């Protein structure tokens, strides 16, 4: 089994050089990005490596929780930045991502699927949070634009005595599917079209393929749970902003 060190990494820089030569020959106008991107990836990952090394040595569950909360906050900020059509969406994305990730991780801890150690909790939280972030942003963008372009249909339903939930149900369902499409596709194609990163990483690190597959199944179920929770929470909180307690459709500025 090969152990990776700095020398192997430096050797692999030959592949960057190859890409740069091909890029120059083909006149791809991205030479600078390719070079700086490679250097940047090196610096970022080395920094993260050191940071994780430090964090994994922490024995305090509270510190682990602090790190996760920081990850959730950053994820919520990114998701909120991508939902430009809804002002002040940070509390929504934060609640959605926090609920999706904390409930899922909590269940995994209670069922003893993982133990409360930084080396398990933090990488898995990273996967959960990035998936929940995408789901929340996609769901919110879809529901905001659907409600905006279907005001007459929604008000017709309200005027006929339907509740805000009944009036917006078709759009909530479509938006939920939009937010969950990527995890649903992942479940359909996993192992056939692509071997996911966690599994590939384990195999490369020397684990048996069967062991890697078992972890991957856990990861897939974990992502389905967190994405579903985040999608539903972001939908519930977003749609409520559009309606008054008297089931009236508001015009959001």
């Amino acid at each position, binding site marked *: 089994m090969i152990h990776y060190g700095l020398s192997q990494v430096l050797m692999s820089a030959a592949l960057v050089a190859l890409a740069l030569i091909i890029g120059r020959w083909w006149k791809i106008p991205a030479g600078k990005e390719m070079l700086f991107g490679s250097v940047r990836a090196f610096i970022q990952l080395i920094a993260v490596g050191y940071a994780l090394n430090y964090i994994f040595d922490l024995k305090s569950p509270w510190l682990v929780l602090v790190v996760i909360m920081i990850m959730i906050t950053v994820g919520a900020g990114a998701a909120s930045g991508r939902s430009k059509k809804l002002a002040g969406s940070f509390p929504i994305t934060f609640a959605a991502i926090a609920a999706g990730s904390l409930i899922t991780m909590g269940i995994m801890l209670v069922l003893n699927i993982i133990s409360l150690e930084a080396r398990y909790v933090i990488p898995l939280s990273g996967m959960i949070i990035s998936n929940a972030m995408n789901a929340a942003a996609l769901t919110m963008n879809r529901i905001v634009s659907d409600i905006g372009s279907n005001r007459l249909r929604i008000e017709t339903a309200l005027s006929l*005595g339907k509740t805000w939930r009944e009036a917006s149900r078709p759009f909530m369902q479509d938006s939920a599917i939009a937010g969950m499409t990527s995890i649903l596709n992942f479940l359909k194609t996993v192992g056939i079209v692509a071997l996911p990163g966690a599994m590939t990483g384990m195999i490369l690190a020397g684990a048996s393929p069967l062991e890697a597959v078992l972890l991957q199944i856990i990861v897939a179920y974990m992502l389905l749970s967190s994405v579903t929770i985040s999608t539903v929470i972001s939908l519930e909180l977003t749609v409520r902003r559009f309606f008054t307690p008297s089931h*009236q*459709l508001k015009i959001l500025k």
Partner: protein
Amino acid sequence: MNPGRFILEARDLFRTVRDGDSEKAIIRGFSFNFERGEIYNIMGPSGSGKSSLLRMFNRLDEASDGQVLFEGAEYQSYHPCELRRRIGYMFQTPYLFPGSIRENLLYPDSGLSDTRLRELITGIKLDPNLLDTDTDNLSLGEKQRIALARLLAAGPSMVLLDEPTSALDPGNTLAIEELIRNIARRHELTVIMVTHNPEQAVRMGGEALLLYKGELAEWGGSDQVVNNPRTEIGRRYKEKDCG
């Protein structure tokens, strides 16, 4: 409960909306008592608050101030959904849900019997065999009728119609007017109908209310308000000088 003479009582209603940085009143101090089983035509130049008034009566919009009583009880004492089933509202461009006529008629109340559905569709002078036709294949006039029948499916005691014939040709306009008068008579419905056409108000009969800049400028029998207005605003509206 002994039904009172008035089905709807509006008292000193105001509605203000944000207009940039300031507030703009689109309904100012509207008071009126609507009698059970009558037809009311709401007239006025564009921007006078006609549609806003109907939306407030269906509680799609909230009054900023004032009071509305339905069947003698405060609006706020009804659940908004229950109130809207009893006070139906038809938009100027009615929206039909994707699917068949049957699905649209069942929308307000999925428990309606087949006999009731047939009654509703014959009531709007359409062939009951069309019940399973897709609404995409209907003409504008037919869509308007279906929207009217769907309104009645909820069993309202009062309907609010926002310019129900504005998109129709003269033939269809007269047919829909007759339909509304018949339905009002047959179901003992109170009808409040917005129209931009004074002649239509005369044809519909009943009473007319003239709104001007959000205020009730004149009211009375439709023929009198249209042809012999008593107020300066009424006369200017007749001469088409204020809109």
